[in-house]
């Protein structure tokens, strides 16, 4: 990838953002390939994420994406929206239900708070992931720091 191609990436100006702004939506199908890349990329060999028999025996509908998949996805949604110079400061999420093989994850998210703290331009974001079986299976709260704005 050349840097020329990357010059299209712009970071949002903190001054222009309002509480309630919409983060848009992404759709992510969970295929066997997704789950294999998930294991390889996050180094998590726990069988509940790749052994269907083990997952079912332990109360899950099927094998499902792991914690680090969510970390990766929430971080991506935040910086895809805000731009490459946004920096994730905090990430908290709760898993009500799993996103399993064959599900398609759909995200929705918005800005819940805009504030300055310790000389940083901060935004609090809320992102919900749903699938065909469960609405809001995973809910995340993020704090994103944007670059200082010029006067």
């Amino acid at each position: 990838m050349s840097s020329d191609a990357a010059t299209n990436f712009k970071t949002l100006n903190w001054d222009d953002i309002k509480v309630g702004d919409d983060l848009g939506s992404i759709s992510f199908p969970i295929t066997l390939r997704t789950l294999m890349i998930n294991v390889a990329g996050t180094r998590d060999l726990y069988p509940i994420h790749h052994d269907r028999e083990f997952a079912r025996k332990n109360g899950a509908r099927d094998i499902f994406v792991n914690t680090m998949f969510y970390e990766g996805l929430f971080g991506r949604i935040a910086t895809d929206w805000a731009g490459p110079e946004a920096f994730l400061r905090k990430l908290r999420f709760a898993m009500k239900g799993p996103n399993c093989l064959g599900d398609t994850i759909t995200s929705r998210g918005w800005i819940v708070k805009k504030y300055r703290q310790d000389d940083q331009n901060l935004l609090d974001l809320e992102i919900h992931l749903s699938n065909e079986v469960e609405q809001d299976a995973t809910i995340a709260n993020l704090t994103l720091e944007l670059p200082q704005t010029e006067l």
Partner: protein
Amino acid sequence: MGPVETTANSVRELAQPFINRWGPFSMTRDAVSETAIRRFCEVAEDGNPVYWDKEFAERTRFGRVIAPPQSLFSMTFAPWWTPDFLKKKSSDETAALDTVENTEKSVSGVIRVYGICDDHGFTVNTVASQEVEYIAPFGPGDGRLKMRSMITEVSEEKQVRVGRGVFVTSTTEYRTETGNRLIGRSILVLLRYNADGSTNK
């Protein structure tokens, strides 16, 4: 099933000596690398150029390629296989770290408490919630990552959707090998459970 258990036998009670005590530092086997970053980015298809493109990243406020902050947990996962000679070397290094940072040899409360869970039949684990604070960017050039953890809370036994178990809360702090910079802090609530729903025998 036997008589009603005394509370002295509960995971919560047995875990008490380990609550709020830092375990020893441990260090990842490998330094933070561009390859590890790219493999993490492939998972959720994250195309942020500060993780991928040196020239672009050098012109940003980060001044270099950085790892996605949210990859911190993944970057500290145990390797899949290590030759014996290297295991020996890294356990010696870890022991040395511990002597430098702690006045007394610390015990890993996390390993001990998870062991107590296993003894109670709560052998399956699932992350109930996680909260991470990313204190500073990290990336290639920072060397390996150092971390230490402590157990902060163990719940009473509970019946949950997937079975019977306990919620174990732990805090972990993360530092860079180069410069010993504090880069993150996490709070993990792990459900340790027994999938067939039966209680301790």
